[in-house]
Structure formats: structure tokens, C-alpha cells
């Protein structure tokens, strides 16, 4: 036990005596651990943010997309259409469905005076504002008449207002051009509390019929009109599952799907969508983790290199220690402790820097609340200890196996 404390004290003294060398040696570990801490908290923050976003979408939502059937054969896939959306609100077939809001997005150039912006313009129906629980703050939202007449009217999000009407004019009643066609601005949406990744306020809404006929080519060979996706609101939280199966059976009927693997659409609930996104961000986290791991590995090799140099430099000291009675295990322990002290101190500095990085990240992106969890601190500490042991064992056993006479004679 005396030898343990002596070694610990010696290691810390050595660290202080060779500050620059120790700092350079620890750099790899510091960078690796900082990366681990920062990336884990970043990944966690993104995940939290995304779930918050999905929760703010509205309640009890299901999303319906066109998708390639798992059985292959892309040829006769039927895209989702306006009539599909209408069918989903048939109260006889779909008793668990409250609303269905079809949407058709067209990437377009939006111009007002000298300001312009390329943005995805969303063709929607009045149902949209109910499904999303999001209303126009000034003017009005798109109504049934606009849909029926394919009116050239637009409702803008606040970010779009800021960039197109940078001089501060009231946009309501002004005319803007979307893909050169003139549209009258009839409303401005309420500000959505979000920023950072996807700015929800960066939107332009037009009647879906207008988007399908004047902005994009949504007309199919059979005369129906394609939609990008349909947002379905179930009557209640408990009705979510029923709603999903009602959607599946209605669409299967309409799309002539006999077997499940011919299904040319996908129904996702909010939580399923969340887990899909989660698995993507999870993959990203793993990828970043691998990079951090490589940096830790490089750091470990640096530690091994310096420890080998240290053992050579201190050959006479090792000889003397053995001469006064240090056993193989005493010397082994001494040098193992030194390398573990290097990696653990490096790890602690890394945890500190990672913490600072996540605080800075939170300050820069207010919507991301980056937290350093106890789990990631424990992980970083364990990993740096293990690295110290793993890369320290070879230099330490070289030191411990030295013959005292040869070591004392070493110049």
C-alpha cells in the first residue's frame, strides 16, 4: 500500500515537473474525451430537440407517404392523390379519423420587389391549420373558396416576411411572384417558437389546387391529382391504432393492394417517425463516436511512446529501486499508475472541455439544450483509465523486468 501511494505521488510530481511534455502527451486523450463528451451531449440534444419538435406538431397525428412496395416492382405504384385524402375522411370507413390534410410541396422562386428567395412552397387545405393547431395571426388562412377557385393567394411565415418585406411594409394585400406568377398575400402565420435546424417560420402556403395546377405538375394520367403526403389526425390518442389500420385498409382497397408486400404507401405515427429520425441521429452518433474512438486510440499510442521514453530515461532510478528491494510488481505498479494518471488527468480535462463545449453549444443554439450526463462522464473516465492500463502495460512490464545491475550501470 505504501508503494501505491508513493507511486501516485511520484506520478503527480512527475506530471508537474514535466508540464509541457505531459500536456502534449495527454493531448490525444484530451481531444478524444472532449469529442466523446461533446458529441454525446450534442446527439442527445438533437434527439431531445427533435422529439420536442414532433410534439409541437400537433396531437394524435399520423403521416402517410407514398413508398416503394417491399415486394419490388416500382412500375405500377400508385401515388397518393387528393381522392385518397378525401376517402380517409369518410366517416363510415374511418370512424377513428378526425381530419386528413393533404399537402403538395413545390420548390419555387418567390420574389417581392427586389427581394427573392428559393423555398419549398406548400400547397395545403384549410384542414392544415387545425391539424397543426397553427393559425394566421394577420389576415386569414386559405379557405374552401380559395381551394375551389385555385386562387393565387399566399400565406407567409414570419421568416419569409422578414426577408421579402425587409423594409417593413405590411405584406397583407401585397403581391408577390412565385415562379413568375403573381400571388396576393392574404395572411401571415403566427410565429412558431423554433429556430436552428428547420425554421418552421420559413414557409409559404398556397391553396393545394393552385400548387398542383399552376406551380407543379401533379395531374396523373387518370386525371387525379398527386399529393406529397397526407397528415391524418385521429379522434383521440386511444384511437391512433385504429386510425392507422383504417388508413391501411382504405388505401389498400383504393390502390388494389392484395398482399402486404405490394403496399405502395407507408403510415407512420409521430412516435414511429421520431424513432426513424432517432435511428438516423443514433447512427450519426455512432459514426462520430468511432471518430472520437480513433482519436483516443492515437492518444493511447502517444502515451505508450512517452512511457517507453520515460522508462529508458529512468533506467538508473529503476535499478536503484530494485537494489533497495522493489519487487517486479512494485515497479510495474509504479509505471502503470503513471500512465493511468496521464490518461485520467487527460480525461478529466477532456470532460471539462467537453462540458464547456456543450455550454457554448447551448448558448449558440438556444433551442438545443445540451446536457453532459453522468453516463457520458462515467464512460469517459472508464475509457481513459482502460486506455492508460492497456497502453501502459507494455512499458511498465519492460521497466519491471530490468535487471538491477544492468539498470544501475546504464548511462
Amino acid at each position, binding site marked *: 500500500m505504501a508503494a501505491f501511494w508513493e507511486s501516485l505521488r511520484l506520478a503527480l510530481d512527475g506530471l508537474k515537473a514535466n508540464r509541457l511534455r505531459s500536456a502534449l502527451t495527454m493531448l490525444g486523450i484530451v481531444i478524444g474525451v472532449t469529442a466523446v463528451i461533446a458529441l454525446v451531449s450534442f446527439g442527445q440534444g438533437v434527439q431531445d430537440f427533435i422529439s420536442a419538435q414532433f410534439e409541437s406538431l400537433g396531437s394524435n397525428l399520423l403521416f402517410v407517404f407514398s413508398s416503394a412496395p417491399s415486394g419490388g416492382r416500382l412500375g405500377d405504384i400508385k401515388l397518393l392523390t387528393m381522392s385518397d385524402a378525401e376517402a380517409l375522411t369518410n366517416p363510415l370507413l374511418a370512424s377513428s379519423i378526425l381530419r386528413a390534410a393533404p399537402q403538395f410541396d413545390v420548390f419555387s422562386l418567390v420574389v417581392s420587389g427586389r427581394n427573392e428567395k428559393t423555398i419549398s412552397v406548400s400547397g395545403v387545405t384549410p384542414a392544415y391549420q387545425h391539424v397543426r393547431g397553427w393559425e394566421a395571426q394577420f389576415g386569414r388562412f386559405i379557405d374552401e373558396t380559395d381551394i375551389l377557385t385555385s386562387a393565387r393567394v399566399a400565406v407567409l411565415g414570419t421568416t419569409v416576411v422578414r426577408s421579402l418585406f425587409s423594409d417593413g411594409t405590411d405584406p397583407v394585400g401585397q403581391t408577390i411572384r412565385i415562379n413568375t406568377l403573381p400571388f396576393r398575400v392574404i395572411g401571415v402565420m403566427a410565429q412558431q417558437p423554433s429556430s436552428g435546424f428547420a425554421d418552421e417560420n420559413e414557409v409559404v402556403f398556397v391553396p393545394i389546387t393552385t400548387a398542383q395546377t399552376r406551380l407543379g405538375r401533379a395531374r396523373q394520367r387518370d386525371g387525379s391529382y398527386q399529393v406529397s403526403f397526407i397528415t391524418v389526425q385521429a379522434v383521440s390518442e386511444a384511437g391512433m391504432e385504429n386510425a392507422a389500420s383504417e388508413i391501411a385498409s382504405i388505401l389498400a382497397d383504393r390502390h388494389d393492394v392484395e398482399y402486404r408486400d405490394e403496399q405502395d404507401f407507408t403510415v407512420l405515427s409521430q412516435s414511429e417517425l421520431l424513432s426513424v429520425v432517432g435511428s438516423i441521429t443514433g447512427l450519426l452518433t455512432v459514426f462520430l463516436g468511432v471518430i472520437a474512438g480513433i482519436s483516443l486510440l492515437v492518444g493511447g499510442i502517444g502515451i505508450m511512446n512517452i512511457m517507453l521514453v520515460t522508462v529508458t530515461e529512468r533506467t538508473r532510478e529503476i535499478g536503484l529501486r530494485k537494489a533497495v528491494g522493489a519487487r517486479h510488481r512494485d515497479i510495474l505498479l509504479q509505471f502503470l499508475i503513471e500512465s493511468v494518471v496521464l490518461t485520467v488527468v487527460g480525461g478529466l480535462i477532456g470532460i471539462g472541455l467537453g462540458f464547456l463545449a456543450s455550454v457554448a453549444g447551448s448558448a449558440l443554439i438556444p433551442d438545443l439544450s445540451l446536457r453532459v450526463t453522468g453516463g457520458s462522464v462515467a464512460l469517459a473516465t472508464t475509457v481513459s483509465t482502460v486506455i492508460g492500463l492497456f497502453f501502459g502495460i507494455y512499458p511498465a512490464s519492460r521497466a519491471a523486468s530490468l535487471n538491477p*545491475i544492468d539498470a544501475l550501470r546504464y548511462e
Partner: protein
Amino acid sequence: MLFRRNGRQKQNVAHLQEDSGPQVVIDVQGVAKTYQMGEIEVNALRGISLQIHRGEFVAIMGPSGSGKSTLMNILGALDQPTSGKYFLDGVDISQAGDHDLAVIRNQKIGFVFQSFNLLKRTTALRQVELPLIYASKAGNRHERARAALESVGLSDRLHHMPNELSGGQQQRVAIARALVTEPAIILADEPTGNLDSKSGTEVLRIFQQLNRERGITTIFVTHDAFIARHTDRVIMLRDGKIVADKRVESPLMAGEVERPSEMAELEEIFRQTYDAPRAEFT
């Protein structure tokens, strides 16, 4: 009075002397050591046998390369013989494993080197504590190290680094380090080799007092015949063999007898060489 008497140990020695003479602590039987230098074999020791009793004060002399250091390293359990036996306290350690040798070095032997071998940037006190760190029952390390330094007259240098001490003081720190575990044997390979004669005499005086007052068996290598005259016994090596093993009639007390001046020694040589051939010339 720098030295404390170790009453118990003295008593034991006296007791043993009464019934069977002093006990043999070191018993070397036909020890040889061969170094392999590539193709060439170097026979550093060629069959050494010797016995040393508890409480003896022995000088080993011999020309450079005669195998003195090799023998001392084997006696000190730092190295092992190629052949032959070495009984330390009645136990043959010529085949002992590394772990056992380390424990023996720690508990039974104090080794002093010609080049001091102190740790850099380490205070005298911590240098002396070092062997206790590896001891199984260390007791109060601080106090024991302090006492050891006091017994070599360095109680006012506890917190000095090696580079703040003279050569003689550094060697005394090294002696305190050898002493701190209270070993039965102290081995020193040319302990005065790097010292001026005044510091050398001081180191010698310490060895002599440790031997007389604590009964510590002491063996050291020296080239200096005047220093060897302070011991009980002189063993002479040449080419890896013992060529002489003599008792010293009346050992000198360190510091009491003036070292013969260079002039006096020269005159002595002069007188001898002058005397003999004179007859031939006439």
C-alpha cells in the same frame, strides 16, 4: 554521541560468542561467474569460497577487473552466480527467484555504491525512506528515516536535494538509506572511491562505528591500503580468485591515526630501494 547503542543485538552477539563462536552469516562455496560477451566468455569469478561471521569488518582489495564488484553484487543479492552456492544466514540463495532476492535486498542487506545512486530532485529524507516503501512492515517511515540520517550526522540536511550536498554528504545519505531497514549486513563497493580523503575518512568512521556499536557485518571494497588498515580482515582478489585473506593485527581507529603524508611514504619507499642495491654497488 551520534550513535545509539543497540543493546539487544550486542547481547545476542555476546551470547553466541560464548557458546559456539560468532555465527557465520555469509558462506560462499565455489562461486564462479561467467559473463558472455558475444563470442567471448569472461570469467569474472573463478571459484571463490569464503566465510564471514556476524560482526566482522572486512575490506576487499584487488586490482581493477579482478572481480570485486562482481563478488559484491552476488553477496548483495543483486546478481546470481553462474555456479557454486551462497548461503546467507544458512539459506542457499544462489538459485532464489527475483521476488525472494528483492525481499532479501530489502530486509537483510544495505548496499552502498561508489557513485551514491541518489534519486534526482528528491530530499535526503525521502531518499532514506525509499527502502521502507518496499518493506512489508514499515512502521513510522518518517521517524526511522530521520533517525538514520541523524546517525550519519545529517540531521540538519533532511530537506536538501542531492545537488545541494557535498560528495561526502551524499554518500552519508546513501549510507543512511542502507541503514534504515536495520539490515544485518552492509555492503559497499568502493564507497570512498569518489571522495576526497577527508570525506573518505568521515565515511570510514561511520562504517567503523556502525560495526562496533551495532554489530553490523560490514564488507567494503577499497583500493586504499591505509583505509583497509582500519578493518579486521583484508581479502585480496586477483583474476577472479582469492589470493590472500588476512587478519589485521591491530585495526586503526578512523580519524585517530594521521594518514602517513605523501612525503613520509615516499621516504619509506626511498629508504627501502636505497638500502638494498647499495650493497651491490659497493
